[in-house]
């Protein structure tokens, strides 16, 4: 029984450790000056698990790199933008998660968060990855204020190592 519990704990831990956002490139509209960028930087750094934040005022691109084992959610990134009075547009993400659903309607579940995205454009080989941990690079389209997009447009998908 004890061995079983330890094994279950290790399995659960390893799943969580490999299921998170690795990088989020978020386009933000409305930032015109240094304090705007600094405000975004401080807000993003306030999210647990965020490692580095880079803000480019001229392109509006906010690049967030996250530490392993983080449990940050997409809602937190959007909120960090909204609380400063700006608007978030499309976000390019690299995220680890578990592939669920069916080959016709696959979903990515980001373990450790409540984030769950329908995958669009995942390709024909998706069936082989169902039930496995995967790394997905894709685009989350702009969502209305206070919401997170439901669908992740896949650019690439691979089994997580």
């Amino acid at each position, binding site marked *: 029984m004890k061995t079983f519990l330890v094994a279950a704990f290790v399995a659960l831990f390893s799943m969580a450790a490999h299921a998170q956002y690795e990088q989020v490139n978020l386009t933000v509209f*409305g930032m015109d000056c240094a304090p705007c960028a*600094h405000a975004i930087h401080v807000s993003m750094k306030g999210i647990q698990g965020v490692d580095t934040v880079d803000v480019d005022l001229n392109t509006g691109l906010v690049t967030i790199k996250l530490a392993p084992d983080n449990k940050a959610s997409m809602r*937190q990134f959007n909120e960090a933008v909204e609380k400063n009075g700006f608007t978030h547009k499309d976000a390019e993400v690299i995220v680890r998660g578990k592939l669920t659903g069916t080959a016709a309607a696959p979903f990515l579940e980001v373990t450790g968060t409540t984030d769950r995205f329908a995958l669009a454009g995942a390709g024909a080989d998706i069936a082989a990855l169902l039930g496995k941990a995967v790394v997905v690079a894709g685009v989350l389209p702009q969502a209305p204020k206070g919401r997170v997009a439901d669908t992740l447009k896949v650019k690439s998908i691979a089994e997580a190592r």
Partner: protein
Amino acid sequence: MKILWVSVCALALTGPAMASDHGPVFGYATPVNSQGEVSCDVGLFGRGGTLGTQLSSGTGCGYGITPHITVTAFLPVSFGSGALPESRVMPGGEWATGVSWRFLHSVTSVGKRVESTASLGVVVPGPLADSGILAGQHRAAGVAGTVASGYASRSQYLWFGGGYTRFAEAARDRRPDTISWSGVYGYRPVKLRRGYEQWDYRGFAELTGEHTGGVRSSGAVVPDTSTTSVWLGPSVLAIFKNIAIEGGVQAPVYRDASDAVYGREKVRFAINFSYLKFSGHNSSH
């Protein structure tokens, strides 16, 4: 604690176009604090004329309740014995209460936004006596409202705004009502559109104007106390991350005021230092 917080909110100010971190130093502008942001301003404001000078030193703090609603507190102290017209563009010795609401906020593209902000507050006399025609007057509180609209981008800024202040009567004395307005153009040169970890500079051309009504004393309007003036001058804003330093000077381009009562006001200047403390707290975890 609740009472203390309410008291702090009650000391929030919107009256004069006090310099505020992102905007011009004289004119009205639209920026408000982000949610949870605390801003602190310390400024020195001067007016000089043929009948003396007036210096005001003010300390202000603001807090963003939401991304679009900010309360600020600004407690100026005024020095000097200049006989100068009432002004709401330049801080005097009055404290005030109020709140600013950015009721229009349209983000159009990277770095660009169009927005409008309204402020409403109560102005109360400060602890120091007034000078000039207002010396010895009984003082009462007033209400102040302002509206500003404008456009902000990485390269250019344009703001227009106006305000109105009306004081109550005290022992049949009353300070003059004031209508004020401003137009501000700002520009950031191409070479200065840099990363946010470098100093961020921009220059403004600030046009401000004021019309003050007559001063009422013992129930009667004092003759020749109504004034109208328009001022123009440059200002420069420098920001590094969360610290801002701003300075500007203005000269009159139009003036309709009694020389006998007010002399000839020749110059206005302002220097302001801001510190911004942004909140890293997020409500979702």
